[in-house]
């Protein structure tokens, strides 16, 4: 845990990812649903952003579009300096492999691979030489010890999610997207995961975007973006659980 004790703060001015006039419309005619309505949002490098909002607010759609899993109806998404709308299916896949990390709510790991193999999976899928020092550091941070050689079904839920976060960080991506990463965990284990993510942002200048509807989880972020009806309705910096709850109350009355 040496890296925890060595602060490496640097002001962030560059942008890891952004969406401009992002619009996503599902269906057509009478059944048409606007999931995203011309959203502009940017995620500075080295910042931990939480996206919150009620069900159907468009937060998942926004994250999927940002992560190159879903395509926008109009508008654009840029990761680093790559405009996703111009990419082919294959290039999108390669971009996900190298520039984007994922943490899902559950079922994050390939059951046939060990924890260590799961962590290095995105790198192993490519031919590029892995940054071994970095991998070693991430693996150390996961703090699994001997369990690294175990299959996921031999790990606890919290351990599995830590491995998932480490996997997301392994390729040193431009941005990590986390979709309710603590949704399946008890609050104590969840807190440990959120600490781990926060450390990754602070120490390694990683950029994390997390979708959640848990105000406690969101309070670990540097910034909270509130979505409702496909639009950004509010934003909080250096949030606490209380300020988030207050913002949620006001946005639901909005």
């Amino acid at each position: 845990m040496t890296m925890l004790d060595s602060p490496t703060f640097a002001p962030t001015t560059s942008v890891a990812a952004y969406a401009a006039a992002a619009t996503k419309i599902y269906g057509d005619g009478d059944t048409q649903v606007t999931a995203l309505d011309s959203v502009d949002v940017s995620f500075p490098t080295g910042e931990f952003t939480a996206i919150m909002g009620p069900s159907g607010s468009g937060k998942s759609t926004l994250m999927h579009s940002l992560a190159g899993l879903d395509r926008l109806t109009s508008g654009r998404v840029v990761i680093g300096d790559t405009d996703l709308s111009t990419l082919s299916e294959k290039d999108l896949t390669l971009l996900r492999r190298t520039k984007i990390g994922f943490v899902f709510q559950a079922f994050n790991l390939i059951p046939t691979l060990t924890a260590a193999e799961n962590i290095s999976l995105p790198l192993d899928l490519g031919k590029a030489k892995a940054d071994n020092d970095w991998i070693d550091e991430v693996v150390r941070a996961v703090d699994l010890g001997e369990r690294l050689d175990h299959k996921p079904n031999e790990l606890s839920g919290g351990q599995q999610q830590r491995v998932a976060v480490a996997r997301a960080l392994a390729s040193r991506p431009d941005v990590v997207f986390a979709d309710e990463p603590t949704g399946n965990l008890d609050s104590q284990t969840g807190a440990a995961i959120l600490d781990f993510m926060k450390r990754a942002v602070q120490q390694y200048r990683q950029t994390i975007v997390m979708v959640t509807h848990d105000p406690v989880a969101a309070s670990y972020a540097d910034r909270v973006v509130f979505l409702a009806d496909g639009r950004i309705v509010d934003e909080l910096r250096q949030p606490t659980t209380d300020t988030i709850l207050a913002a949620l109350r006001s946005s639901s009355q909005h």
Partner: protein
Amino acid sequence: MWNITRKNVAANKIRLALTALAIVLGVGFISSANILSDGLRDSFGSLAAEIVQGTDLSVSRDADVPLGQAELDRLNAIDGVRVANGGYGTEDVLPIRADGTVVRPNGPPVIANSWSTDEQLNPTTIETGRAPEGPGEWVIDKDSAEREGFTVGQTYELIVPTADGFTTAELVGTFRFGAENQTNGATLMAFETNEAKVLFDRDNFGGIDIAVDGSRPIPEVKADIEAAFGADYLVQDTADLNAETTAEFNSFISVFAWVLRSFAIVALFVSIFIIANTFNIVMSQRVRELGLLRAVGATPKQVRRAVMGEALVVGFVASIIGLFVGLGLAYALEAFLNALGAELPPFGKPLSIATILIGMGVGIGVTLLSAWVPARRAGMTSPVTAISGHDASSVATGRRSIIFGALLSTVGAALTGVALFGGIESTPTLLGMLGGGAALLFIGITLLSPLVAAPISRALGAPIAKIYNRPGVLAKENAARNPKRTATTAAALMIGLSLVSMAFVVGQTLKNDLNELLETTVKADYAAFPQGDGMVPIATVDAMEASPELGTVVGMKYWGTEIVGNTPLSGAEIDDDLGYVEVSTLDLNKIDEVLNLDLVEGSYADITDDTMAMYESVADDLGVGMGDTVQVMLADDSFIDMEIVAIFADGNIFEGALVTEARWDSIGDQENYDWVATTIADGSTAAQADEAIATIASDFPQIAAQSALEYREEISGQVDNLLFILTGFLALAIFIAFIGIVNTMALSIFERTRELGLLRAVGMTRNQMHKMVRWEAAIVSSVGALLGAVVGIVFGVLVVVATPDYVLNNLSIPWLSLAGLVAAAGIAGLIAGFLPARRAGKLNVLQAIADA
């Protein structure tokens, strides 16, 4: 939820189609066998009726008794007989076309008969020209005349079984057989009766046909003949003759049909594994749904019935389609066999009630049988699983099925062992025990193979993991992750390939043994064999002796006769059903120049007209040895005593006893030779001798002359052809096994939707996913092929050990071919994985992840 349901249905459509395909093919093959045999039976049945029509009674020899002019005269004198007509028939006469080529039977036979001058007793009618009336004349059926280009009024050469080997005769007419010359592809010829006796080299009539004058009832005439001739003669009426002729045709047809059927049975047996596996996988995937059914009050019986109902529908629909496929296959098989030169007679393709009932019964039965265990398991689903989503499939694996598998394997192995080594005489019992034992063994091995499926998968996948990195590792691990599923899927392939591998081992051993036998025992440089069923004429031997390029010429003759020793014959050395031993002869003064027989005791020099050399295992069987005396039956049915003065080792070119030529002439009744061995003359080169042999072979089209090497190559080629045909027939079972691989892979992919979505999300390209899925299929099929090769080698070794040494002796295993087989299976697996891989690649990442 709707989304999942819709996908379920879509996945089921493919699953149902693939499951049904296995049944469709199996039922199709069984039905085509039935349709073909029905059609052929009808066609040959009417042929039989035409052959015997007009013959009221027939007398033939039932023992070694004379049937000549004297017997004919006695029959003509019997009250009620209008005319008795003695006839000869042979398949050893072949006409030579004007261009010098020989009309050879390639499927339907070429038959020569004596011409009956009595209209009622002659099933043929002159169409052009006239009937043959004496020496130097012949007639042929009109269609064959046209097909083979024979013109009435021209003189042709014919191959005949006389010492000269040839005769010249004028074609004086053509005839039709029955009303429309429906010969079912056979070529028919006829000669005047006395000429036929000479040309066919016959002492006795083949049979005497009788037409009655109507003054007395036929049964009375029959009884009179039987009384006058005694039990050594067989007297038959029209119905007997018809039944006999039909039975002869039918035995040939049913052998053919049973060959087809046995391959269909193997295919259906393989189908059971595939269908059971499919139902098992689907049931474990639907465990929540089944749990819900149980939770809302469905009894285990109701759930079981629902599953069996689904199987019933699949089996029913597939069997109906299978019947039509069978009809199509019957046409295709006819065309295929005809293309191979079989020239099957034209026949109908009746879809009889029996064919329909058998096809439907087998198809539905196999499906229900396959679904039984999965249905029982589905019925036992706990209602709690609806909530917990607990996987039911993992519960039933384990010790119980291992114990059951071990039990079945043991019983199967025991049955097979008794069949192979128990000295069972009855062929149907033997085949039943072998088949049943093998089936039990296969099921047992399948139940046991989950124990080894994972390590084998990992071992086979290791190089792939090296080459393809992560997709390779995942392919390997996916193949190993559910050993039971991999084992069952692979088992289907194991069955077909183990049979192929066994054939490879037996075939290779046979080839090597023959090669070794020829290499060690034959010193001659060339051998001349008859083409087809005939003999090598004396004239050929004369021509060889006259050729300055050829050295020693030795002709061999074989004849089966009765030899009485101290114990009765029991083993497979018996030449035929009569318990005869093969007695051979050749010029004993020249034997050392052409053959190198392995004499255990004694020497040729001691063989006189009253002594013989005997084959070791025959001597053992007869309970005699050196210096003992045996009784040998002569041609006139009397016995003489002969002393054994030499013993041959097992695995020799002669199988029974060896006597002098003079003695042989009193035992056998044959002028021409079975085969002839010759050497290159001193002072001649191999090339000169080759040319001399080639000239003789072209002068005598009834023989084939080959060098020792050519002969060995030909035998190898024949064994290879047999293996090739066998593999071709087993291809159906192997194909169905690959359908099983496609099926399992498709279902596994459906099951792993979430996992595949995750892989795509973290950066696995479509291409990599294709590789992963296809290599998994390749590993699964290689596991099956490897197990099949191992089981096949064991079977092959057992067969070789169980077979007498003079048939199969030195076991040799074709490792390279077997390795090629496993590799080919791997490649086929890659191909089988194509569709599932495409399906996996098309996966919508977002939906896959959302389905969690």
